[in-house]
């Protein structure tokens, strides 16, 4: 049989798998797939009853397969796509910012009649909303601050 190489075969009966050459069939999933008949992908019970000379019938509930049912192949992988999940984060952030601004605007409207004293608290967001169509983070307070102070300076 030794002429049947390329495998270093027979002779030594070492139970250790072959080394060198092709990759090892060490992966347990592969092993189970072959050794346990029709594979582990089929969730549920596998019945092993070969031939009908009396033998034990065993139902194997495959622990490994049970998770598989939940998802279909290829459906969920893009959910983990970094570009998309970051997009989702941006959206949440933007929504939150919009909600805050809406709250501030409404607060500003109710206080609209109030005079100079409340200016710093309420007018600032209102002004920034008027001057800038999109809410941008850090710049907002700075510009509104300067505009407010300018206004203060030029106020009659």
């Amino acid at each position, binding site marked *: *049989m030794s002429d*049947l*190489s*390329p*495998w270093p*075969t*027979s*002779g030594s*009966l070492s*139970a250790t*798998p072959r080394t060198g050459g*092709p*990759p090892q*069939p060490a*992966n*347990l*999933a*592969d*092993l*189970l*797939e*072959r*050794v*346990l*008949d029709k*594979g*582990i*992908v*089929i969730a549920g019970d596998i019945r*092993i009853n*070969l*031939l*009908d*000379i*009396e*033998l*034990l*019938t*065993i*139902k*194997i*509930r495959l*622990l*490994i*397969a049970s*998770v*598989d049912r939940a998802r279909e*192949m*290829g459906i969920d*992988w*893009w959910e*983990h*796509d970094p*570009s*998309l999940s970051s*997009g*989702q984060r*941006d*959206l949440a952030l*933007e929504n939150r910012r919009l909600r805050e601004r809406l709250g501030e605007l409404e607060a500003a409207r109710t206080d609209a009649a109030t005079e100079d004293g409340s200016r710093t608290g309420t007018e600032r967001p209102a002004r920034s909303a008027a001057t800038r169509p999109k809410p941008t983070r850090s710049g907002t307070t700075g510009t509104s601050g300067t505009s407010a102070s300018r206004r203060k300076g030029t106020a009659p």
Partner: protein
Amino acid sequence: MTRDAYTWLYAIASAADDRPDPGRLSGVAGERPRLLTSEGLAAVVGSVPPSDFDATALQQHLQDPAWLEAAVRAHHRVVDVLAQSSHALPLRFATLYHDDQRVLDLLQQHRRAFQAALERIAGRMEWGVKGYLDTAHRPPDEDADSTGTPSPGRPGTAYLLRRRAARDQAGRALDDAAERAGQIHRRLAEYADEATEHPLQSAEMTAVRDPMVLNGAYLVGRGRAQGFTDLLADLRQAHAPALRVELTGPWPPYSFVELPTTDGGR
């Protein structure tokens, strides 16, 4: 009915072969496998204690991944050694008989079928080829670039559009990969003596997140193994950016052993 031991069947070989002494191996229960011969056939069996291997005990054991792995590996080790050094039909895990006599009956009753099956796999080994859609090396798609440009005023719509584009793109990539997998399978199957496809494995099992698109098994004569791996290397290169191809084996021809079914009965 209590018994001292059940008989676990590992493989069936031709008795004429000068096959290695299985007694030096260790079986699923740590036992020493032995040979049962009958009219030119030899069954490699082991005696396993009913306390661990009757239906209920075994079913419990099978829920235990550690036990299952150890036992499956032990089974495979015995089969693998036999399959390499002689012609042997590898039997599935947990092929159990009540005693040796049952196995001898089996050999006798299905002698022709076993010999035919041995003939069919003689000098051949099984190779496994798996293909994955390579998402890491997917060419950047133009749709994804639009994620950078802020859409004026309608972020929700833009997000949904982006998602749809990405989903469509992923679907196209998967279709393409499946198409390529089909091509690879056909080429390999042409080369091999026999071919079959296993069900695709899920990401939980493979620990690979990329979706699997090919899970083939190929029966190839030992002398042609080099040609097979060369062919695979060519195919791998041809489909390189889209598809990642992995080779496992050689295996005992587990996937190509059709055990003789009953003559009527059942």
